[in-house]
């Protein structure tokens, strides 16, 4: 459960608890309490009422959205073994490909996107490289390194590795050798 979901659930629980306690108090013959006096205070001014309506509608809209939202499905790559299936999340392959791409000399950062196709994996690499690098050489190195590493560690065939150099990082002078 996300933090915002917890917060909304907590606020809703406090609201309904207060409402329940107030009603129980009245049912058992208690005098009008703070809650009822607060309602009368809100009811006495159109702006306060509008604010109250807004808060209640926001709550209602949030819980409607909670009720109807779909769970995010995890895209996976399937491998069959004699003992059952092995499904590897595309995000897991992206993490591995990212580490492989970053190990190529001259690559400063990379962003990976993996798509599973019937022919194998299509891997898209967006990379930031250092200055004074041969772009054709570095793209070839990224392609080879990522494809080999994924084949070796995941055991799934790689169809294409597309490399896009998006940025040349500014030169960084090393402070130490």
């Amino acid at each position, binding site marked *: 459960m*996300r933090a915002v979901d917890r917060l909304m659930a907590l606020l809703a629980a406090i609201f309904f608890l207060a409402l329940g306690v107030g009603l129980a108090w009245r049912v058992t013959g208690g005098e009008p309490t703070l809650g009822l006096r607060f309602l009368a205070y809100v009811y006495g001014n159109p702006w306060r009422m509008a604010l109250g309506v807004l808060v209640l509608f926001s709550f209602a809209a949030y819980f409607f959205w909670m009720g109807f939202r779909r769970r*995010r499905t*995890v895209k*996976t790559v399937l*491998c069959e*073994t004699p*003992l*059952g*299936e*092995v*499904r*590897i*999340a595309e*995000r*897991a392959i992206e*993490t*591995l490909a990212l*580490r492989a791409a970053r190990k190529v000399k001259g690559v400063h950062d990379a962003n990976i996107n993996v798509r599973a196709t019937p022919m194998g994996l299509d891997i898209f690499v967006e990379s930031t490289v250092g200055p004074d690098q041969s772009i054709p050489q570095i793209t070839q190195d990224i392609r080879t390194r990522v494809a080999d590493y994924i084949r*070796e*560690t*995941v*055991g799934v065939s790689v169809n294409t590795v597309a490399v896009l150099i998006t940025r040349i990082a500014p030169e960084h002078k090393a402070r*130490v050798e």
Partner: protein
Amino acid sequence: MEGYEPVVRGGNIRIANEVGGIIAGLAATEVEGVAGMSGGVVDGIAELLKKKNLAKGVKVEVGERQAAVDLYVILEYGAKVPEVAYKIQENVKRAIESMTGLEVVEVNVHIQGVAIKSEEAEEARVR
């Protein structure tokens, strides 16, 4: 409580699904290369469960004589996925079969993510 209830002389033995889940979770995390069980995916990032929540990353379906297991795991960076996945399947099958007597018909491994160890993540700044 769902589970398998074999009839034996002198009484019944009832094996709860949760027990199968814990056995499978423990057997899976014993395998080298497994960082832990996954509690699901939140905002696209797989949640690594603590050791005490082992059964949460496991779904076990127990029949009268057979069981099927689904495991949601996070692997360590550097592990060879097919090898580790096969070891998980073997270890889980062996553990459940030896401890419960049920026949494990399939062990499906769902690799939800790859964890990078802290020392790996914080590579040395100088050599």
